[in-house]
């Protein structure tokens, strides 16, 4: 299992039966493949779907049923469709239990930067700002560093997506909770030392008393 799937599988274990979940583009979409048995979640697509299902099979694409990335998907029994104002009312109103997305940077105050890199072409924030402000729990799922350069910081330097919204960070190196005192490492990947994780992190980690081994 590669790092992305390892991370996705671990994130999936955070989901509880009945959760309404929005998965960002990229790595987070893999999470749907790993939802544990006995846990039934409802996937939300921010442009107007509850009950999103897997990608449409080739030849069965329906251009009127797409995911937030623009790709044809299916919906599950019990799905519903609505306009974008209604959809973001669901998001902003706190009716999404968990949103999982990637980050360019995330810091120990729970600040998130994931929508623009200064000096690079700006793609726009899309629904990310709404999702992280509205969702009850925000999980950042990403590779721990960008080819070695720190993404988990004491203070984000890129333009923020939102202030103080991130609850948890899950990477291939470990699981971290954002606490009032800073970033607490609660699980660590097999074969790594705390020092390994700390040196890949641009903020001082708090180490949980009951630090566990991270299992996917």
């Amino acid at each position, binding site marked *: 299992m590669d790092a992305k799937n390892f991370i996705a599988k671990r994130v999936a274990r955070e989901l509880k039966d009945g959760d309404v979940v929005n998965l960002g583009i990229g790595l987070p979409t893999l999470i749907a493949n790993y939802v544990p048995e006995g846990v039934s979640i409802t996937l939300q*697509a*921010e*442009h*107007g*779907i509850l009950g999103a299902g897997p990608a449409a099979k080739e030849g069965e694409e*329906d*251009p*009127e*049923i*797409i995911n*937030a990335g*623009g790709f044809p998907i299916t*919906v599950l029994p019990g799905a519903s*469709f*609505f*306009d*974008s*104002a209604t*959809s*973001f*009312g669901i*998001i*902003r109103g706190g009716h999404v239990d968990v949103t999982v997305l990637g980050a360019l940077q995330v810091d120990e105050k729970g*600040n998130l930067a994931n929508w623009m890199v200064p000096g690079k*072409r*700006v*793609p*726009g*924030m*899309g*629904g*990310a*700002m*709404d999702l992280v*402000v*509205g969702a009850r729990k925000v999980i950042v799922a990403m590779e721990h560093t960008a080819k070695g350069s720190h993404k988990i910081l004491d203070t984000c330097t890129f*333009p*923020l*997506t*939102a*202030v*103080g919204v991130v609850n948890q960070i899950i990477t291939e190196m470990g699981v971290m909770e954002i606490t009032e005192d800073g970033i607490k490492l609660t699980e660590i990947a097999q074969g790594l030392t705390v020092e390994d994780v700390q040196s890949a992190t641009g903020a001082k980690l708090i180490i949980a008393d009951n630090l566990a081994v991270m299992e996917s």
Partner: protein
Amino acid sequence: MDKITTAAEAVKAVKDGDTLLVGGFLMAGSPETLIKALLETSSAKNLTVVSNDTGTVDSNMIKVMKQGRVKKVHGSYIGSNPMTGQMLIDDADSVTLYPQGTLAEKIRCGGAGIAGFYTPVGVGTVIENGKEKRTFDGKDYLLEKALRGNVAFVKATVADKFGNCFMRGSTKNFGALMARAADYVIAEAKKIVEVGELDAELVTIPGIFIDALVQSEDV
């Protein structure tokens, strides 16, 4: 009142300097027949385009932009249209970006007679620049104002001749809101049926909002 017309006739409603609301989320619900008519039969320029994403490289909007007829964009995600990205690089004031839910709600308010609303989205980010920040029950919110257009282009799956529109699946997105927030609203429909053939419970946009109805080339 016969609302059915051709795309070329309908888009004559777009005038120089107009604000044009364009429905769709990427290609879902994108009124390509109408945008193509704007591209090929209209010379309206200095347009302000309000669109979630201004389409993709496959859309007609990028061709209208290449004609230099779009002076300003209000959108949310523009990574799918490199012309819009280039506009932003060339002139930061030419593209205004909003959180997607804020853009949707601004348009809804524009259609619903609401002048503005307080949202928590964007607090502490560049989005709050120039906006009133205010605390309600200990939480910070930004004041966002309503947005309206002169003309709206929307796409329906099925429309009846009165203009009642059913937008299927994930095509409702912005079109359902924009049809209520412009002075003149043009809908293209994949299928046009007689009044009474569309289930009253399936109406996404009531016909009273639609001024002109065009057969979509996407059938």
